């Protein structure tokens, strides 16, 4: 019962809704959260900074996961949506003197509305055609921030973003940013897990599996597809607002298509439709990237290459290879592999 080796049978509707089912899971959850939120006490600032980047990326990819993994709608514009959130938050804080704590939800809301507008073609087109329409947003949105209303957006030259204040204390250290970002990651994940089990989440999944059948069952495609875009963009808006405070300097080129592709790659490696997969994909690729940077100088010396020549090549090379290998050998991502591992552990020593 403790480790569910022989199954766990729900006896009421309330039990159906339980996320954490066994004492072991409780221990792991609490342990993980305690470990996470005490990390600033024993981890260096540079690692916290990487964790901050990972946290922001996870929030953005969680949004993409809701749109693509739950609802089956394609998007290659997540980085542009982040730009909307980042600029909205930065402009509110910088130009209007509004507190970041107010600017954050407002930025998320504005990004959500932009997401609805960009998502409108989803009512007519699907798959790669929809991806093309989000690609258009990916091109147009950063261009707008670079060229329109330049006295406020800073145009191509960019703008400084004042640091967040918590009761007049600036939160500029990696530790304070870490806590802020990862609280939002936890909340975002909790919302995403619950969304899947809600009426809305089930409607999303029905649309993903067969939109015609879903419509015949009375699910409004317009409402739910646009809602998926809204939620996806909401996450991107939050990620963007945090990004603006993490970088404290915004230029449109930060929100390029490479980042959107990277987010998509993380989702593929992690596994579409799985919350755990989002974490696995993002964290593993970021760790891999860091490892590549770490081993590059040594590898360069080993190969007798001039200093600085291996490091630039190895990280993109590793990223490309990993995506390729996952697409060939495990297209359902790391999360699927993890589920298989758990299943075999539960059934051991039996094969099924």
């Amino acid at each position, binding site marked *: 019962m403790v480790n569910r080796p022989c199954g766990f049978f729900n006896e009421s509707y*309330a039990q159906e*809704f*339980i*996320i*954490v089912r066994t004492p072991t899971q409780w221990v792991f959850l*609490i342990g993980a*959260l*305690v470990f996470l*939120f*005490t990390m*600033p*006490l024993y981890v260096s*600032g*540079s690692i*916290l*900074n*990487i964790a901050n*980047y990972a946290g922001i990326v996870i929030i953005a990819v969680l949004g993409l996961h809701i749109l693509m993994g739950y609802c089956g709608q394609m998007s290659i514009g997540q980085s542009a949506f982040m730009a909307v959130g980042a600029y909205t938050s930065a402009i509110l804080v*910088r130009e209007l003197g509004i507190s970041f704590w107010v600017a954050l939800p407002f930025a998320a809301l504005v990004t959500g509305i932009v997401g609805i507008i960009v998502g409108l073609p989803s009512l007519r087109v699907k798959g790669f055609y929809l991806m093309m329409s989000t690609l258009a947003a990916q091109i147009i949105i950063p261009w707008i921030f*670079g060229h329109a209303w330049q006295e406020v957006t800073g145009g*191509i*030259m*960019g703008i*400084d*973003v*004042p*640091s967040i204040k*918590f009761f007049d*204390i600036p*939160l*500029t*250290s*990696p*530790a*304070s940013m870490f*806590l*802020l970002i*990862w*609280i939002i990651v*936890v909340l975002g994940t*909790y919302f995403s897990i619950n969304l899947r089990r809600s009426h809305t989440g089930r409607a999303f999944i029905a649309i993903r599996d067969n939109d015609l059948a879903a419509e015949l069952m009375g699910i409004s495609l317009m409402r739910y597809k646009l809602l998926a875009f809204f939620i996806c963009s909401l996450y991107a808006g939050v990620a963007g607002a945090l990004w603006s405070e*993490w*970088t*404290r*300097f915004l*230029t449109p*080129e*930060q929100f390029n298509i*490479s*980042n959107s592709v990277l987010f998509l790659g993380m989702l593929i490696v992690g596994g579409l439709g799985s919350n755990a997969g989002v974490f696995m994909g993002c964290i593993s690729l970021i760790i891999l990237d860091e490892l590549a*940077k770490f081993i590059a*100088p040594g590898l360069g010396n080993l190969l007798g290459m*001039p*200093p*600085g*020549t291996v*490091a*630039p090549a190895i*990280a*993109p090379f590793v990223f490309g290879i990993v995506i390729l290998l996952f697409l060939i050998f495990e297209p359902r991502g790391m999360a699927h592999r993890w589920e298989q591992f758990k299943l075999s552990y539960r059934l051991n020593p039996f094969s099924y």
Partner: protein
Amino acid sequence: MKSKIHIILACLMLMALLIPVIVGCTPAKESISAPTTTPEVKKPKEIVIYAIHDMSGPMSVSTMPTVAASEDLVKYLNSKGGIDGVPLRMEWHDTRGDKAVLITEYAKVREITPKPLTVGVYSSADALAARFVEDQIPCNTTSVSTSMVWPPSWIIGVSGTYPDLTCTFIDWLSAEWAKTNPDRKCRLAFFGPDIYVGHDCASPEVMEYIKTKPNIEVVATEYFDFRALDLSSDILRVMQSNPDYLYGFYFASSGAAFYKSLKASGFQGKVKVATVLWGMQSDIVNLVGKEALEGVVGPFHVPSFKPKGQKQDNEGMELISQLFDQNNHPETYRGGSYVSGMLYYYWVIGIIQKAVKDYGWDKLDSVAVYKTFINTRDLDLGGISRWGCTEGTRYNNKCFMMKYENGVTIPITGTLTSPDIRPAKFRTAEYNWKAAGWPEGYFK
């Protein structure tokens, strides 16, 4: 069960909110200086020069000769005893042209003990401007945009800002035009990439400055896509204004696209081209050939060396040429990027050396290096060029006008002092630093 999750999450959130007060908001500890009475000053085992450069991505063609040059320089200086017997070492970090990577790489560097004396950032240093101030680490940079050095911070540029350099060109052009065409105005078109450096060359302050030159008229200001491979239609558009000169930032692969498209659209030789800084560098020549750049002029602080086998203009350049040959670099690296990379780190090491001399080994830290940077008014760079900043500015105000001729960039003027084209808001004496989000009293 569900409510349990809420309670536990709430407790953890509360705990997490309190930790910043304990961890993140603790005031910085006062640094304790070592006792000065120690008779034997302990020198460090080595001096590490940290460099966070765009070693991959669109600017890498220009960066890699810089990397090679600085490694050669360090090797050479170490063979001569380093700085007062202390060897030097370069440590490279790649940004991939991505600001997020730049920030995470800088976060690693700032954690290193002992604290870095200075950090080199190839481009986009402005993304870290506030952090350099907070960490009190001077940043040296080579591609100096206005937003990097205004408001003045801990970022110091080896060259002038793009507006300063552009106006140096304007001064030269005005004088030259008056000699050759006294009867009519020079029709100047700004044509640059649609990125911050492109816009910086044609900033409002530059346009104001041009108005003071009665014989120069700006007939067009156009931008093109930095990543575009063909610019023929953009060139046709700008050429409709019938300019005498095209001026812009023709850099790396976009520079190659510009020169190729200029030739393809039949305008090569029909309009004079001027470019700031990197547009005459070896990386461009490798991509488009020498002929495409023949006659191009522009302001720059470093000339290039002459082709292999030819006698160099001075001893410094001769040495650089020898180092290049000794280290067996590809011939494609031979050119201005290698020389400018060499002089860039010669400048950084020169400043550290000066800081050692002025402050001593026991007081050598990042603040000492910063003070040395900002108080250096005229530093000789190997007899090839000079570096110096003025009171309140953080970048070089010296350069030459260069011309690309027979495969090399040669100075066509002596050392020039660039006009001060700072953004208008920083011309007022009482700029409100605090309101702009900068720590109070950081700039005095």
